[in-house]
């Protein structure tokens, strides 16, 4: 059942990314990366393997939907999921600040890796300075939205699946 829940969360992220984030783009000039936040959430809740697999598929969907370099987001999100899942072993925390920091570093890593992969696979493509500005805004948006979104999802998971929720956290395992 929890798999269905995560699938729904992933679907919700796709929907959010394709619809609601447009309003952020209109208001603030950049849109949050809901996929990154969901991958952070998945990694935190389910560990590095689920984070990696979930991140891979969500990233792949994002690649297809955005029409960019196929596999770039899949790799980035997979790595983020894996890294976040690894962190939970060592870091005990469910605080908003922790989520915000994770989202911040994940977003910075995502942007940097994207540029690096573009340099490697598509050297002819020029990276416009505007990209960095947008990437910076996206990072900030993710940082601010992460506590809200991750907290909301964790809360929902705990309510719907009280037995399974949060088991990866060390203090409750």
């Amino acid at each position, binding site marked *: 059942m929890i798999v269905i829940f995560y699938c729904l969360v992933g*679907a919700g992220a*796709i*929907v959010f990314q*394709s*619809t609601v984030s447009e309003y952020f783009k209109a208001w603030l000039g950049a849109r949050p990366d809901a996929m990154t936040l969901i991958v952070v959430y998945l990694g935190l809740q389910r560990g*590095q*393997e689920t984070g*990696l*697999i979930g991140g*891979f598929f969500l990233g*792949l*969907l994002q*690649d*297809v*939907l955005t029409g960019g*370099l*196929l*596999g*770039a987001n*899949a*790799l980035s999100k*997979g*790595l983020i999921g*894996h890294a976040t899942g690894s962190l939970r072993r060592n870091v005990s925390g469910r605080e908003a600040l922790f989520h915000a920091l994770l989202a911040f570093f994940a977003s910075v890593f995502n942007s940097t890796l994207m540029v690096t*992969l573009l340099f490697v*696979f*598509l050297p002819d493509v020029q990276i416009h300075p505007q990209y960095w500005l947008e990437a910076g805004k996206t990072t900030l948006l993710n940082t601010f939205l992460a506590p809200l979104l991750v907290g909301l999802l964790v809360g929902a998971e705990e309510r719907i699946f009280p037995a399974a929720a949060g088991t990866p956290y060390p203090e409750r395992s």
Partner: protein
Amino acid sequence: MFQLILERRSATLLTSLFLICFTLMTLSVRRQGSITLIERGALSIAGPLLEAAGAPKRWMRDLGRQYLLLRDMREENLVLKKQITAMRGLSFQLRELEAKVRRLESQLTASRGLSVPVRLAHILGQDASPFGQTLLVDLGTSHGVRHGMPVVNQAGVVGRISRAGQTASRVLLLTDSRSAVDVIVQRTRAQGIFSMAPGGKGEVRYLATDSDVQEGDLLIASGLGGVFPKGLPVAWVTKVGPKGERLFRQVEARPAVDFNSLEEVLIMIAPEQEAGRP
């Protein structure tokens, strides 16, 4: 081998991730422009999802458009209502103008049949006094109007100028008891004098008792009074008394002009009167 993979599952997954992603990226770069199987599959999955997700957005957009449309329609409706009100006013004005043009046309037609020059005068006011039937018109001595000039319209005799001011004049109407016009019966040429009786009815006096008069006969000015040119319609005979009962025949008549709907009149500027009759 499998045991090793299971033991190092995380590392295996990570390696697989790199392998798959780099393969995908390589394929993506090499086959730019063509859609891969993975892309097709992912699009097939995400397409309906996005379609469904886009539905509320479309509904909201449509709702917004409908709202804007309704708001615009309401504003347009208000503007159109105002325009209709203005158009109604304009329509009334046009009808009024049309009526005026018709009246003036008939006045013009009437004036063409007259032997003397005429001037069109607009009625400024009517004397509401019960003692006199007069009109105030917008032409005076500065326009060549003099005392005693006949005033007519397309239907017949209206009256005569009783006082001529600089820019306005007073017209003594035919319906005033002080007015009297020498008339003849158009059909038989029998002569009499038309005036208004104190009761408000028109009568023809001094008509010979054996004269041939019938109801519906037209009385025209005889030209003998020196004011109204001969041939102008004055009144219609409405009632005729029996012959031989009295010295003069009793005949009632109503003026040819409808005094209730007068708006413009023609003042006959007779040269001899223009010359200096007081």
